[in-house]
Each structure stands twice: as structure tokens, then as C-alpha cells.
């Protein structure tokens, strides 16, 4: 089935690791850095990615997109207050997802991420000398459903099948696990460029069981840079509100100063005519001064740590090891804070910038069947609920529940002959829905009946990627109920499809790979729907003969999946749909049947 690569798609830098003879290793082309800066620059004649964006960046600062990860799975309103420090443009017209504008075109966050992923993919393909199609991508543990989905979409747009979304701190723990450094209860403190995570795990006999996780997806090194930039702008005594180029240059200078002050006690910031102003700025900054500016931000990591400990049911003193991950943990102030909190020296034997990618390669190896002795049991970082009467949150799955997990809820109607029930799904910890994150709304299709008679069982399933799917059935008849999900933030499937069409460079191999990928995805959902129908409905309603022909057709699809022939896969899907058709007919109520005459079982049942 080919290689599975591990990707750390970071806010500041991205990198790839693969499993080699001696263990996981990060890869880079001859003479190049392993880190690809997560920066995309749109120039007049081409698109530059990574290191190459550095040349002429100052002149093209408005068409150079960085820190796109902060915008994944978010809406315009979420990022409005961050715009002050961003030199590139965000399209205010698009509310449901963030679109950045460069050279007159709007790009969704997954599209920008896909450009970075494609660069990484081509690097690894050059290194291996063969095509790569499957990947594990890491995300902050505290990423919500929409952010995870956006990451998966980015992979798809880059021509990668994302086999698993892995949480960054847990990936790091896997990398450490290989070295046998971690036993007992460990805390992973992960402060990157844009996000913060804390995870508490118990490691026992090769099982990495996450007990609790916490974090803040908008807290990282970028915030230190912005605070420092604000301080420098104030010192310079200039007004730059109307000059994004100048702000951008101050932020870049702040970032350089921060790095230098990690090693040294003093540095000098020099800025000549930033953003075309007449300013000539020169200022000395000491480490102590910097720490005073950034410490209120660094302290915001402490509350999530304490909460994660409470959720895990362990005291700080019971933590056997503390691991540091992410570039921002190089800052001495951060290290001291962590040591104080846990009462022990944290360690970072593995390079904190590489350890997440290495862990992704370990997870990739587990998925490929190479390692059978290690298993990661991760959790969902946020509680899941639905809107109930009065805007209160009705809890369905609590945070820190081990995934995959599922929960069933039964819904009914309040009016006679009501044919739909609206369900609003959210994530978050607050009692009122207005304080939580809306994920999606969906409508349950229901057979007309007197009020309160309908009994629709909805299954909320969170998979091993932390991504939610919803299925429903009518308990009175056992029939499938339709679920039409509208995501609150992010892209619909159709939008991703369209972007795919736009993005593929029309190379024949690309088109073929994409067709196979799409056929595979469809095959998966048809087979899933069929099996679940048999489970929920088949015990009493399907004869042995019919069951045999259905399972035969399922095997047919699966054999086709072993090939790279998308037409064959499609033919087998059609064959399966044909044998399940009578079952689908019986499962549909007359009303539904009329509405869905041309729809097949798979479509009626899928999420």
C-alpha cells in the first residue's frame, strides 16, 4: 500500500519524518534545512513556499501568508481582533470560514495549508524516489472538530489521504516512548508558535493512555512577538495603525529579538524606514525586560495545566516526568515556570522542534503495521453537546473521553406531523450554548406522527481522529433517518471538491490519484452504511440468502479497493447498491421513499 509519512504542520515551521531502518528520522533535501517555514508568498509569476519566501519578503509582505494554522476551522469573527498584527488581507465577506486575499484571489485556510503540504510531499517523494499518498498529520490536542476537519481537508487538497490526525503532545510522547524514556505518568507541555497544549498520559506496557488534555489554540510564540512588537512600536513613538507593512516589520524584528534573548542577555533592535516610513529605530532590549513583557502571556498556560491535572485525577507531585515540546519552550522563563509548577526539572532530550514530526512517523509506522507493541489511546479535548431549551447545553460526550467513542440519544417531536427535528451540535465547557463553539446544525427527517410519538435514535461517533460523525434511525420502525449536516465553520464537501478541481495541476497521474481517492472514500461510506444497516435492522429483517448476497457484494467492493482502478471500484459500488436496494426500500418509509426515490441506501444513511 506504500509509504505513510508523518507530518508536523506547524504554525511557524512544518516538517516531515519517515520511519527508517534505525527509527524515525526527519528528512530534508541535500543541503537544505529540515524545517519548511509555514509561509506562502504569492509573487507576480509564481507561488513561493518556505525558505524561498525570505528573499524579497519585505517588499511582498502583503502577499505573504504566514501562521495560517491559527485560522484553520475558524470564522472571520474569531480572528477580527488579530488582524492588527497581520500584514496580509482577510476577506471580510466570507463569514463562515477565513479566506485570505493575495493578488486579488481569496484562498481558504486549508488551501494555503495544502500549498505547504504539497511542498512537503514533493520533498519526501524526491527523498524516497517514489510517490507518496498517505500521511499522518499532527494537530494541537486542543483543536476542535472544525479545526481537525480543516486539516484533513488541507491534506485532501494536497493529494494526500490523511489516515490519522494525531495530537501533537501525544505524538511527542510516542517519540520519547521509543527511547524508553517515559514510564509511569508523564506531562507533555507543548508551547509552539501559535498554540499551547498540555497532556497528561499514563504509559504502561506499550499503551500510551491519555488521561487528560488541555490547552489554548490561540496562545503561542506569535503572541510573545506581538506583545514585544507593541512595546517596540510604543518605544518608537510612531503611529502605524494605517501601515500594516510597518507593523509586519516590527513583528519580524520582535521575533528575531526574542530568539536572540533565549541565548543572550541583551540584544539590539534596528529598523530602518519600516513600511516606507521615515523612521530610523534603534533600541536595546534585555532578557529581563522581555520577560516582563511576555510573562503575563506565558502565565496563561498555567490554568490549563492545573485543570488537566484535576481532570486526570493526579497531583502535580505524582507526575513522573515532564517533557517539553515546541520552539517556545526554549525560552528560559517558560522552562522555569514549568519547573515551578510541577516541582521537577522538565526534560527535552529530543529536539523540541522535531519531536512531534518524529512521533507522527512512529504513529505512521503503527498504522502501517510495522509496530504492534505500541498503542496510543487518545481523548477528545472538548465536551460535546447539543442545544436544549433556553439555550442551555445538553451534554452528550464529556471532555477527556477516550476516543473512538459513541453515544446514542433519543429525540422526539413536539408537534403533530412534524417531519424534521433541528439539532444544533456544539463543543465547549460552558453551560450556555452562546459561550461554546458551534460545530454544525442538522435536520433529522421524521415520518409524520402525533407529537411525542416519534423516537429517533441519533448516534454521535467521535473517531480516532477526534472528528464527529452523526447517524440516525427511527426506533419505531428500525429505518434509517436522514441526517443533513451543515458545518458552522469551514468548508462543505462540495467546496472541497471544487477546490480540488482548481488545484490539481492536471498532470495525468494527479487526476488518476484523485479519482482513486474519491472512489475509495465513496466505497468506505457505502460499506459503512451497509454494515450499520445490517447491524440495526438486519437481525430480523434480512433473510440468510439476502445477507449472503450483500456480504458477497461488500467483498466485491473490498477486492476492487485493492486495485488502483477507480472505474472498477465504482462498478462494485453500483453492484453493492443494487443488492442493498430492496433492503433500502424496506427501510424507507413511504414519505421518505417519495422524497428519496433516486437516492440510494448509502446516501440516505451516511453522515
Amino acid at each position: 500500500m506504500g509509504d505513510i509519512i508523518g507530518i508536523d504542520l506547524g504554525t511557524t515551521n512544518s516538517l516531515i519524518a519517515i520511519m527508517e531502518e534505525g527509527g524515525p528520522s526527519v528528512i530534508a533535501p541535500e543541503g537544505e534545512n529540515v524545517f519548511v517555514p509555514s509561509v506562502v508568498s504569492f509573487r507576480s509569476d509564481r507561488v513561493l513556499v518556505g525558505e524561498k519566501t525570505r528573499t524579497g519578503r519585505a517588499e511582498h509582505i502583503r502577499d505573504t501568508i504566514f501562521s495560517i494554522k491559527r485560522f484553520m476551522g475558524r470564522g472571520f469573527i474569531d480572528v477580527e481582533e488579530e488582524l492588527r498584527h497581520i500584514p496580509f488581507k482577510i476577506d471580510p465577506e466570507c463569514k463562515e470560514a477565513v479566506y485570505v486575499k493575495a493578488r486579488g484571489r481569496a484562498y481558504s485556510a486549508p488551501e494555503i495549508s495544502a500549498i505547504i503540504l504539497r511542498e512537503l510531499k514533493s520533498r519526501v517523494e524526491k527523498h524516497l524516489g517514489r510517490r507518496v499518498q498517505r500521511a499522518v498529520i499532527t494537530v494541537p490536542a486542543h483543536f476542535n472538530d472544525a479545526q481537525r476537519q480543516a486539516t484533513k481537508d488541507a491534506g485532501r487538497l494536497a493529494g494526500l489521504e490523511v489516515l490519522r490526525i494525531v495530537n501533537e503532545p501525544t505524538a511527542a510522547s510516542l517519540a520519547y516512548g521509543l527511547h524508553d524514556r517515559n514510564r509511569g505518568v508523564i506531562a507533555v507541555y507543548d508551547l509552539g508558535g501559535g498554540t499551547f497544549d498540555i497532556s497528561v498520559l499514563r504509559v504502561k506496557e506499550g499503551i500510551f493512555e491519555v488521561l487528560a488534555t488541555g490547552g489554548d489554540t490561540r496562545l503561542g510564540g506569535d503572541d510573545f512577538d506581538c506583545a514585544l512588537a507593541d512595546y517596540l512600536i510604543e518605544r518608537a513613538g510612531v503611529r502605524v495603525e494605517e501601515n500594516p507593512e510597518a507593523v509586519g516589520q516590527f513583528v519580524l524584528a520582535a521575533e528575531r529579538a526574542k530568539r536572540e534573548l533565549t541565548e543572550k542577555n541583551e540584544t539590539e533592535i534596528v529598523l530602518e524606514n519600516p513600511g516606507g516610513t521615515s523612521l530610523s529605530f534603534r533600541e536595546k532590549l534585555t532578557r529581563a525586560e522581555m520577560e516582563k513583557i511576555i510573562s503575563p502571556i506565558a502565565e496563561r498556560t498555567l490554568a490549563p495545566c492545573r485543570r488537566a491535572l484535576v481532570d486526570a485525577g493526579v497531583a502535580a507531585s505524582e507526575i513522573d516526568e515532564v517533557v517539553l515540546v515546541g520552539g517556545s519552550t526554549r525560552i528560559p522563563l517558560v522552562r522555569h515556570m514549568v519547573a515551578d509548577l510541577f516541582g521537577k526539572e522538565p526534560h527535552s532530550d529530543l529536539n523540541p522542534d522535531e519531536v512531534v514530526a518524529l512521533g507522527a512517523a512512529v504513529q505512521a509506522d503503527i498504522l502501517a503495521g510495522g509496530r504492534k507493541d505500541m498503542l496510543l489511546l487518545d481523548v477528545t479535548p472538548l465536551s460535546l453537546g447539543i442545544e436544549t431549551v433556553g439555550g442551555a447545553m445538553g451534554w452528550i460526550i464529556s471532555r477527556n473521553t477516550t476516543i473512538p467513542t459513541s453515544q446514542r440519544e433519543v429525540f422526539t417531536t413536539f408537534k403533530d406531523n412534524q417531519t424534521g427535528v433541528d439539532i444544533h451540535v456544539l463543543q465547549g465547557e460552558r453551560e450556555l450554548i452562546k459561550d461554546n463553539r458551534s460545530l454544525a446544525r442538522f435536520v433529522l427527517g421524521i415520518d409524520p406522527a402525533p407529537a411525542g410519538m416519534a423516537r429517533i435514535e441519533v448516534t454521535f461517533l467521535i473517531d480516532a481522529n477526534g472528528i464527529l460523525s452523526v447517524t440516525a434511525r427511527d426506533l419505531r420502525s428500525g429505518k434509517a433517518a436522514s441526517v443533513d449536516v451543515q458545518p458552522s465553520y469551514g468548508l462543505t464537501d462540495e467546496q472541497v471538491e471544487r477546490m480540488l478541481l482548481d488545484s490539481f495541476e492536471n498532470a495525468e497521474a494527479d487526476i488518476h490519484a484523485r479519482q482513486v481517492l474519491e472512489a475509495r472514500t465513496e466505497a468506505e461510506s457505502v460499506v459503512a452504511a451497509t454494515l450499520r444497516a445490517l447491524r440495526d435492522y438486519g437481525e430480523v429483517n434480512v433473510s440468510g440468502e439476502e445477507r449472503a448476497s450483500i456480504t458477497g457484494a461488500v467483498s466485491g467492493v473490498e477486492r476492487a479497493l485493492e486495485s488502483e482502478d477507480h472505474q472498477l471500484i465504482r462498478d462494485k459500488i453500483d453492484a453493492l447498491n443494487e443488492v442493498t436496494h430492496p433492503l433500502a426500500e424496506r427501510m424507507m418509509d413511504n414519505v421518505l421513499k417519495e422524497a428519496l426515490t433516486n437516492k440510494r441506501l448509502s446516501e440516505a444513511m451516511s453522515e
Partner: protein
Amino acid sequence: MNQTRVKSRDTFSVFDENGEIQLISSSVDHFAFFSLPRKMEIDEAGLETKYYEYSRRLHPDFFTNAPSSKRILSLDASARLNSAYKTLKDPILRAVYLVELESGKLEENDSSPPVDLLEEIFKAQEAAAEYKCCENDAVEAKNLRANLEAAKECFVAQRAGQRTALEDLGARWDKAIDAGEDPPAEVIDRLRSVLSLRNYIDNILRSVNQALEEA
């Protein structure tokens, strides 16, 4: 694929005779899933061992290259495994699950808090609301915080008392099961009342804690 409807706790197995994962019907309860008797007291260490063993056999990580039907069976079975384990490993969640399995979902009116406790609850709710939303001066805020801390202590003590009651009732429940009988109706009723009161107190504690955390 298993075609018989599973009722008896002894007949269900996650794996079929060839060691393949089965379709798990929703009629299989968490106890049946782990082949455990429907008792309040269970072998928790044994449960953990079995959980790890099943995780190693069911987790989707080990089915990446398997046919899609097997991947789906693995996903559904793992989800069931994790839900079942989460419920059964915690004595309170386990008790609620077991009582609901025998006698239907717990409702709010299963509990009738004693009058003095109700008073405490109302006072705490008021204090929490005021502490969260209003502009309080330092002295006021300090008083409110002290009230909330006191209320918290009272509820935590209440919960400790319930714990003893639950243990006694649980022992009587298990005795009946061991004797091959149904749990006595009186035990079920009292369990329902204690558990739903506990649920009620947990909710209050949650909002008290949230108020203390936020301010």
C-alpha cells in the same frame, strides 16, 4: 455475523469463532460486552486488564490496511469498548448505568432533597450567580467567595455521606444477584433516589466550581 438477539450475559462475545470482530447490536449492554455479571461491585483490576487486551485487538490503528468492512467493525467496536470501560470503571457511573438498565432512566423527580439541603442549594446558586455577574467591591467579593467555599464543603460532605449509603445498597443488590434473584424493589427505589440526588448535587458543585474558577 451474529444473528441472534443477545440477552443473556453469557452468550455474547466481541469476537466470533475465527477471532474476527462481530457486529455489536445495541441490545448488548456494557456488562455483556465485558462478560461481567450485572453487579455493583466488579473486579476493577480485571476490567482494566481486559480493556487493554481488547484495545490491542480492536483499535482502528491495527486495521489501516484491512478491508473497509473490518475497519468499520473495528471503529464501532472500539467506540463501544471505550464507552463501556468509561462507564464500568467508575463506581458511580456504573451504579447509575446498572440502575437504569434495570428500572429505566433516572429522572429529576426521583430525588427529593431534604429541605435544609434545598436551602443550601438555593443559597449557593444565588451566590454563584452574583459572584459571576455582578461588579462587587473587594469586601463583598471576599464574602461571596467565602460563602461559595462553605457551600462547596457542605456539598462535598453530602457526597461522602451518599457514598456510604451507596455501598450498603450496592452490597444488598449484589447479594440478591448472587442468590439468583432480582434486586429488591426497595433497594432499587432507594438507589434511584440517592443517585439522582447525587447527580443534582454534582450539577450544583459544577456551577459553584465554575464560579470560583472564573472570578
